[in-house]
């Protein structure tokens, strides 16, 4: 919510107890045969304690790369090109692998896409979660770890009498809850969930999202929720960041971004979703395709597909415009109220 400072105007580091995560001007690239692909370009945002942020955007926008970079889990051809990731005041990009290993799970847990398929099929669910607990807290006995597993099952609405089952005996929704239990097992400050409900049916997805929101509120955990589906994050997250072609293009509270979207991409994205509420209206697709990130266009990356396009959009690097103290848009043509 402190977006003025999120843009990194070089102010000194004050202790801000409320700010759990501050990402400043983060740029990440992948080395490919065609050259360096700038997957993330100058992304900045903050996430306060006890808040949830939805990072949304379509395939290739860079949101997953942001999540992976936060965890220090970029693939070998990925490299951080610039910026800082301040977690509890410390820059994660300066940490050694050993230090990151200790931060993972204890401080930051991640739920990957289709993580439920990563459950070990030949190990009982309770054993897997207990193992995760004891890896990071070796001082605990097996018995104590299992006791914790019991508590976690209750927390995520899994029946205790299913603790000794194997993953294949679980439904999709139950597996996902087991994954969430594992993520919560070391009481992290932050959970990064990347498309956690993609493989689930509509009804189960809704249940898991509701449960996640309740957990988030009750436990005061911060969540970074990454999704291509803006509809999902609408119901779950306090704040929304919209990404397009490697850049953050809009940031604000859920009410602001959905109620009064500022960026033409956000507006276009919302207009392309069929809804069941309200009057039936024409779906307006966004023409064209996303630009190349190996040779990104100068100026605005969305201008070729934008309804408000003007010639200067192609040449001028767009600047951030504040629509309110908590709502900002990356657009040269956007008008402040």
């Amino acid at each position, binding site marked *: 919510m402190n977006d003025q400072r999120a843009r990194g105007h070089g102010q000194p580091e004050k202790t801000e107890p409320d700010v759990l995560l501050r990402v400043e001007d983060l740029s990440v690239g992948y080395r490919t045969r065609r050259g360096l692909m700038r997957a993330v370009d100058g992304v900045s945002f903050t996430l306060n304690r006890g808040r949830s942020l939805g990072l949304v955007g*379509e*395939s290739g926008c860079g949101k997953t790369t942001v999540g992976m970079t936060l965890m220090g889990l970029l693939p070998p051809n990925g490299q951080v090109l610039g910026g800082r990731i301040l977690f509890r005041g410390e820059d994660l990009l300066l940490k050694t692998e050993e230090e990151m290993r200790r931060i993972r799970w204890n401080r930051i847990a991640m739920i990957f896409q289709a993580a439920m398929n990563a459950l070990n099929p030949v190990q009982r669910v309770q054993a897997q979660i207990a193992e995760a607990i004891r890896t990071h807290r070796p001082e605990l006995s097996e018995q104590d770890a299992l006791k914790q597993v019991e508590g976690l099952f209750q927390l995520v*609405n899994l*029946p205790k009498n299913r603790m000794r089952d*194997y993953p*294949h*005996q679980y439904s999709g929704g139950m597996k996902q809850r087991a994954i969430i239990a594992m993520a919560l097992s070391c009481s992290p400050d932050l959970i990064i969930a990347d498309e956690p409900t993609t493989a689930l*049916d*509509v*009804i189960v*997805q*809704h*249940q898991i999202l509701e449960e996640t929101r309740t957990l988030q509120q009750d436990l005061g955990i911060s969540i970074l929720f990454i999704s*291509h*589906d*803006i*509809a*999902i994050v*609408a*119901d779950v997250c306090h704040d929304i960041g919209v990404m397009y072609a490697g850049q953050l293009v809009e940031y604000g509270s*859920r*009410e602001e971004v*959905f*109620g009064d979207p500022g960026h033409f991409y956000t507006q*276009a*994205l*919302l207009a*392309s*979703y*069929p*809804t*069941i*509420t*309200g009057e*039936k209206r024409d*779906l*307006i*697709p*966004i*023409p064209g*395709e996303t630009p190349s990130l190996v040779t990104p266009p100068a100026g605005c990356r969305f201008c070729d597909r934008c309804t408000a396009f003007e010639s200067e959009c192609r040449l001028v690097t767009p600047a951030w415009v504040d629509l309110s103290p908590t709502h900002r848009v990356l657009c040269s043509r956007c008008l402040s109220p």
Partner: protein
Amino acid sequence: MHEDDTPILEFEDVTKTYRIKGSMFGGRPAGEVTALHRVNLRIKRGEVFGLVGESGSGKTTAGRLIVRLETPGAGRILLNGEEISGLHGRRLKRYHRQVQMIFQDPYQSLNPQLSIYSSVVEPLLIHGISSGRDRRERVLEMIRTAGLSPPETYANRYPHQLSGGQRQRVAIARAMVLEPDFVVADEPTSMLDASYSAQIFNIILNVRKRFGVTLLFITHSLAAARYLCDRIAVIYRGHVMEVGSAEEVIHQPLHPYTQALIDALPKFGLTDAMPRYNTLLETDRDIPDSVGCPFFPRCRIARRSLCSREVPVLRPATPGRFVACLLVEGGAIPGGNGH
């Protein structure tokens, strides 16, 4: 004017079961899975009919039965009043000209070694339709109709040069090049982002308007079905639970499962926009292999004495509306969440 009210496609009491082999490691006993249970559907000529269900509902199986990738275990499927399982030889070939399919996965449905032109012309070659310049015109025109313009540019490309959304457009062009009477679109956009899905939806509507083709749109998304479809059927675990016009089913759902689906849809922050039906139990009832209604284990308003014993049959509720629910009488659930 004579009105032909033979439905163009009909499912008559269609049942399809699969045998599953047991697992050596004791996880699953051998047995049967019922993908479709006594399904009855009548699709009208020229309409876009939606089959809405989650995974395991049998919706994809229904699509595969229509294009004869599978055969029903019981019951009949009829095209223009003629049973399709008996067809062979020339009549079967004609059937394949009349009925086409668009698959879900844009990365699997096109032969990577064929140019776009070759992929789209292939059905014309197989059926010996058209020739020479005429054939070429027809292919290019269909590529353009599918939203790939200028068609000559795209015709020379290969699948790997196209995005997922573009590939699906090629799939539409190929399905339509024979100008079939009936097209099954099996989740054509579930692997695409929202903005590309919207493009595909509009192309489908365009194609329908232009060619008058009848479409079966298989989807898990009620919202997409609302946008595209004239009528929809909601299917759960192989049973059709509700049929009606898209607007009616969504705004006045009769079946508790449909109501649960609607409750589960994202509301874009507008939580007061739709009524909450609350027909879903928080935890399922533990009923091993129940014989009654497939929705009974999760249904909050079910009556055990009735619903766990009897299988509901699709019955008319109000004109044009059908529901398969033992508790429904005259268009509303007595004592349930009325509207």
